[in-house]
């Protein structure tokens, strides 16, 4: 899109460039070195929304939440020094979870670089290990092209966060502005065309497999390949299990959806991994939380690995056939090349495994007979109350695993959670981004009492912007997951995991947010209903059993075959 050049300041060029990229929302926090950009933003408040968070980390997680729901890059602004360093946790989170994000940080004026100027920090250096790409802009003329490249890199191939550090003199300086979107970079090929020979080789393995199993990850969601995935498994009759980040790509009730993989995943998918004769991995990276002990993983299976990132092939698990490329295209080609098939007996084994798990774990979680409330029953109730159509946002810990296990999904792009980095404090700010990305959908943020207090200040952002997030606080007065490990692997030595908590209702009330606290089962239904009916943000605090554990569990370092159903 080439328009007549016009003379503008670097700051205005930043805003104009963002508009060219279709940016609607910026999450940020102003400060000295980014003030010219904020000043330029002041004139564009009708065209672009800025959400002032209460901490830059909140801005980064909100941008992640926004990106997860929309598939577009989330955008954050922060000032130099502490502003920029506060973004880092969110950037690292986006990096490991492949979330497109464009961060723009102010920097001291270029003559001051390297002089330890006020609020100067080496943001380029600090962010390098956790960004897909970063760049420092020191002259106004560089701004449009750098922003165009930033969006191209963040959103193409395997997405990720990029950071642009703009010195204050580049913001103040002037340039002839014209914008051209970036479509290619010589040194960067985000996606290679799918090799039809690899597809044929994969199809042959698939057609001949007796006990095939498909594992899908977030790649399916990123490439918008949900329909292609469904078509593939329905044609071949192959049971499909998901990684945490793959959740919601396939409806929970789909007959071939056999559940979650990994440490707190379902019993069937874990043990069957070691009985399968073929694993088809789609857009997933064999994280250690999925594989357990690698040397004892999928021992009898050939591996077909579909991924867009060549560096993921053979990184953890050696692939017999690797199909590089976009999952939407490769799955479609694979479906065309495979014979129609079914695996009824094999699938029934997953159902049998589910029955075992139901009896030993699920029934107790969802229909407890003990007095204390379980996380499972709360999550199940909330999911039901939303007709399983909500966006689920979680924090990190026990509640996250329970939510992944028991929340049900009908639509893709309905889960926002911190997978790879396991960032406590992610949930509340991410829910803001999710809600802004989908203003018409119900957003439920399930958060533990530990993580809630890590970014609790974002209640201010939620209140100021009237974001109707439904916060379900599962309070066990413990850092539950750490406590669970202490109980199981550290002889119950509860070293610094017990929390003496504040009155959460009073705190949210202070922010102008309504809520209620539930301590017994008979009040749960009504409270959930009241939360759902409430117009605006709401805190439902549920006091749950203090020392409940999440099961099943593959102990750290154990084989997936040795998944425990009880302690």
């Amino acid at each position, binding site marked *: 899109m080439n328009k007549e050049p016009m003379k503008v300041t670097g700051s205005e060029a930043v805003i104009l460039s963002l508009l060219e990229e279709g940016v609607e929302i910026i999450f940020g926090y102003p400060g000295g070195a980014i003030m010219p950009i904020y000043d330029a933003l002041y004139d564009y408040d009708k065209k672009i929304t800025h959400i002032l968070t209460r901490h830059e980390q909140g801005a980064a997680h909100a941008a992640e939440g926004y990106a997860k729901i929309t598939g577009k890059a989330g955008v954050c602004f922060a000032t130099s020094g502490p502003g920029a360093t506060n973004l880092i946790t969110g950037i690292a989170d986006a990096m490991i979870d492949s979330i497109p994000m464009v961060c723009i940080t102010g920097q001291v004026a270029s003559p001051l670089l390297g002089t330890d100027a006020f609020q100067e920090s080496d943001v*380029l*250096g600090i962010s*390098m*290990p956790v960004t*897909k*790409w*970063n760049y*420092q802009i020191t002259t106004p003329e560089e701004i449009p092209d750098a922003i165009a490249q930033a969006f191209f*890199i963040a959103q193409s191939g395997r997405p990720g966060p990029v950071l642009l550090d703009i010195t204050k003199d580049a913001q103040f300086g002037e340039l002839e502005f014209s914008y051209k979107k970036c*479509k*290619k*970079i*010589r*040194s*960067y*090929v985000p996606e290679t065309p799918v090799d039809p020979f690899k597809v044929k080789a994969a199809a042959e393995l698939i057609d001949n497999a007796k006990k095939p199993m498909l594992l899908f990850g977030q790649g399916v969601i990123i490439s918008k390949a949900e329909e292609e995935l469904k078509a593939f498994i329905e044609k071949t009759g192959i049971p499909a299990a998901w990684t945490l980040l793959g959740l919601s790509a396939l409806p929970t009730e789909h007959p071939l959806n056999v559940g979650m993989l990994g440490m707190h995943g379902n019993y069937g998918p874990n043990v069957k991994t070691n009985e399968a004769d073929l694993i088809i991995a789609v857009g997933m990276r064999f994280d250690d939380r999925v594989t357990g002990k690698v040397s004892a993983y999928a021992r009898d299976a050939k591996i077909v690995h579909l991924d867009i*990132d*060549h*560096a993921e*092939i*053979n*990184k953890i698990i050696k692939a017999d056939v690797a199909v590089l490329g976009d999952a939407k295209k490769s799955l479609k080609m694979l479906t065309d090349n495979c014979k129609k098939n079914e695996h009824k007996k094999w699938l029934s084994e997953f159902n049998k495994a589910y029955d075992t798990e139901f009896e030993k774990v699920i029934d107790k979680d969802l229909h407890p007979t003990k007095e204390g409330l379980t996380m499972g029953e709360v999550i199940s109730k909330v999911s039901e109350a939303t007709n399983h159509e909500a966006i689920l946002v979680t924090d990190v810990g026990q509640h996250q695993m329970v939510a992944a296990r028991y929340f049900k999904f009908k639509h893709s792009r309905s889960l926002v959670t911190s997978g790879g980095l396991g960032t406590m404090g992610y949930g509340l700010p991410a829910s803001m981004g999710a809600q802004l990305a989908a203003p018409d959908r119900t957003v439920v943020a399930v958060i533990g009492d530990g993580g809630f207090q890590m970014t609790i200040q974002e209640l201010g952002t939620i209140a100021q912007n009237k974001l109707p997030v439904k916060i379900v606080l599962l309070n066990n007065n413990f850092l539950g997951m750490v406590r669970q490990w202490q109980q199981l692997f550290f002889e119950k030595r509860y070293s610094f995991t017990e929390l003496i908590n504040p009155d959460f209702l009073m705190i949210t009330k202070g922010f102008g947010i309504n809520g209620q606290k539930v301590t017994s089962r008979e009040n749960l239904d009504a409270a959930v209903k009241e939360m759902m009916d409430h117009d605006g943000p709401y805190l439902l605090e549920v006091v749950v059993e203090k020392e409940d554990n999440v099961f099943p569990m593959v102990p750290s370092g154990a084989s997936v075959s040795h998944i425990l159903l009880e302690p």
Partner: protein
Amino acid sequence: MKQEFNITVFSENHIGLLARITIVFTRRKINIESLTVSESAISGVYKFTIVIKTTEDQVKKVVSQIEKIVDVLKAFYHTNQELIYQEIALYKVPTDALYDSDQIENIVRNSGARILEITREFTVIEKTGHKEETQALFEQLNQFKVMQFIRSGRVALTRDPIERLSEFLKERDAFLNSMD
């Protein structure tokens, strides 16, 4: 089994890229034995030659990760046997020692080294070769008390008749043009 591998990286010339590449090693606690960076035969394309000691499995993964860096064009790895490579070493010895006997002269002759500069106080000798060779010369010269010694990083060529990069760049340009 750990052995020496030569990683060759071709990249655009961007500030910070060296750090981005070394992070790949740092993160995996791999020590860089030697590193050379300079402009390649293709203008604007820079060539890194990095020597590390590791396993083949690890070097494959490292090269994959390096190739993933946005500003990197291509990365390869080779064993020492697959390459022709040299390092250069400079030795500064007291000039007096040269006059005292013809020993230094013989060492220089026999080792294929050459004298770069002679001043009243010192003489600078240059030798190219593999590390064992430049190290052996150091041991020999050190009996005359080497005043200063420096060895460069490695430069290396593949045994292929052509630079694989030019072929690669042609393919890459064709691929990018096909996207238009």
